[in-house]
């Protein structure tokens, strides 16, 4: 007689054995984690959520001074604050997703060592709470945008605006995918933790945040375009500011890249989560 068991624990499960049903069952936990992240971030601060604004504004001001005025890097005729701000907010979202998820195992080893829930909930909640932060900063961007419109700067809108959710998804996917890979490897090889910290910084310079792609030519341009983030950022700038590089093939490349990275990340994460408590 074959009995029916609700839970079977074995030494190893299939590589592709993702339990999405269980993930769905724990959806309430995801919202709790998001709430915790958002609520506790600025507890006992005077300015509270205003910090969400201050950080990108200050960064923008520094960029305007350093890259815009001292280095005189062109911005494709777009007002400098808008140009930098658009890059900063979308970049922030990527780096938030990446840095937060790349720390999943190390930061939560206490919880993970005491109670079981689908581990993937944790990085997913980071991506979701990052999204809330992104939207707040996005409104800031819209405010600056509208200000320039009333000042008579003309923007042309098109149907490409509909691409925005997709672009955000790509950013989230890339951040999550890389983060999952890094957090899994960090459980054994702590060295990678150091790589993440300055890696993100360096990666920003390989992405058209402080310069437009139109500035680059030849080999250099091809190399930068190997970076899937470059396509996403350029598309994002094109959609809002009308300047930038929106190409179908570029986005296709970024989409495939994202899909592969997310898939690989989940694979490695899935394999690591079962035993990481022993190795971390």
């Amino acid at each position, binding site marked *: 007689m074959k*009995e*029916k*068991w*609700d*839970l*079977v*624990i*074995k*030494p*190893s499960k299939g590589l592709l054995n993702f339990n999405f049903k269980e993930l769905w069952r*724990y959806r*309430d*936990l995801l*919202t*709790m*984690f998001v*709430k*915790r992240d958002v*609520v*506790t971030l600025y*507890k*006992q601060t005077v300015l509270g959520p205003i910090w969400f604004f201050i950080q990108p504004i200050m960064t923008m001001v520094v960029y305007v001074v350093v890259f815009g005025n001292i280095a005189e890097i062109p911005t494709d005729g777009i007002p400098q604050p808008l140009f930098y701000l658009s890059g900063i907010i979308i970049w922030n979202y990527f780096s938030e997703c990446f840095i937060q998820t790349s720390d999943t195992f190390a930061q939560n080893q*206490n*919880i*993970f*060592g*005491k*109670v*079981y*829930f689908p581990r993937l909930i944790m990085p997913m909640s980071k991506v979701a709470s990052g999204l809330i932060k992104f939207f707040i900063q996005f409104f800031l961007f819209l405010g600056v945008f509208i200000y320039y419109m009333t000042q008579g700067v003309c923007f042309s809108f098109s149907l490409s605006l509909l691409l925005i959710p997709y672009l955000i998804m790509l950013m989230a996917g890339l951040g999550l995918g890389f983060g999952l890979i890094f957090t899994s490897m960090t459980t*054994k*090889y702590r060295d990678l933790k150091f790589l993440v910290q300055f890696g993100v910084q360096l990666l920003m310079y390989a992405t058209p945040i402080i310069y437009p792609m139109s500035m680059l030519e030849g080999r250099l341009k091809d190399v930068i375009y190997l970076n899937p983030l470059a396509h996403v950022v350029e598309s994002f700038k094109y959609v809002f500011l009308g300047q930038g590089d929106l190409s179908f093939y570029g986005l296709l490349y970024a989409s495939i890249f994202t899909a592969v990275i997310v898939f690989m990340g989940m694979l490695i994460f899935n394999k690591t989560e*079962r*035993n990481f*408590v*022993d*190795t971390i």
Partner: protein
Amino acid sequence: MSDIVLKVDNLSKQYRLGEIGTGTISHDLNRWFAKIRGKEDPYSIIGQVNDRTKKAESDFVWALKDINFEVKRGEILGIIGKNGAGKSTLLKLISRITAPTTGSIKAKGRTASLLEVGTGMHPEMTARENVYLNGAIMGMTKKEITRKFDEIISFAGCDMYVDTPVKRFSSGMRVRLGFAVAAFLEPEILIVDEVLAVGDAEFQKKAIGKMKDVTNDGGRTVLFVSHNMESVKSLCNRGMVLKNGMVQFLGGVEESVQNYIEHYVEENRSRKWPRKEAPGNHSAALLSANLQKDGDPAPNAIIETGDGVVFNFVFDYKESREVQLDVTFHLFDEMNTLVFVGSTGKTGDGGVLGKGVLEAVCKIPKNLLNEGNYRIGRLLLVQNRGTVLYEYKDVLSFDVVRRNMGLGWQGQKLGVVYPKLDWEFKSISNYND
């Protein structure tokens, strides 16, 4: 349909000894290479039984080895064993914290584990927010928590502080809140580690009562790990004794506790070697060492707090010249704290002796040792108050169990020793400054 809700088959878990880090890349590459050739993991075959008294021979150790058992619906299984016997590892495997090395666990219905109280609680958030967060971590849905919220808060006894950040709570209150959430989980199988050791006596009673209710009317199954034999006896209806990662005994709770205590105390109370094989060197050898409860020479008499202990050491002194000889021992507790050094040199009880067998008897007075495991970590034969002729490490070990004194402090042990002090206690009627 059978009533078995949890079935564990040939479960084993291997751990790596020593530091992880050096050589891991080469191990990983070896593993991977073996895998693509379709061979077995070169590091999974070796490994030794988890006996901490022996020195490690390989880099790997079996924290659990070939565990088999079944639990029926409604049973409360108490899992007992010494520190390091594998209890926590077993719970971790069943709770899916980490995966087994071999074997399988099968369960019916929802399982929830309580290896710690209040996991994931955030100090900055209010009690209300934390109940929701903690409940969700334990696997409850938001709806379930809302339904039970008032009950949880009143069970924890913090109605007044619902909207106060948990960081303002006392640690006892935090534990109560955490346990209250767990108590209202409704899993088919509940796995509880020794979480009851914290909290005051009143709350412990309440918590044990609640756990009993849970199994009585819900037909739920509980796995309970504890060092406290009293709570195991009062709560469980079956018992399992683990030793060195293996099941030593499985059966009724009374028999299990009995089995545990028997094996717990007999360990290393007596050692004896024939003269030819006695450990030593050219000047001295250790022939025997043993200890017994003061006033009860039975080899497995249970030593309780308050009891005295008598040691007996026999040495063979092989040199012919007469010298001043002293016997010294270092007594350590389970935390490896040096409790005291006993020596005939200090009291002048040693003597000038020549070639032959000498015996030293030492009595630890009553009302000194606290509960716990004690070990004679070093036993020395000293010549002329300075030269160590021979030293033997880890000679004897014994356990002192807490004398049951009714209710009162039931938590962790307080202090290394438990001396009986001389008190004077009276009321002063004509007190003036």
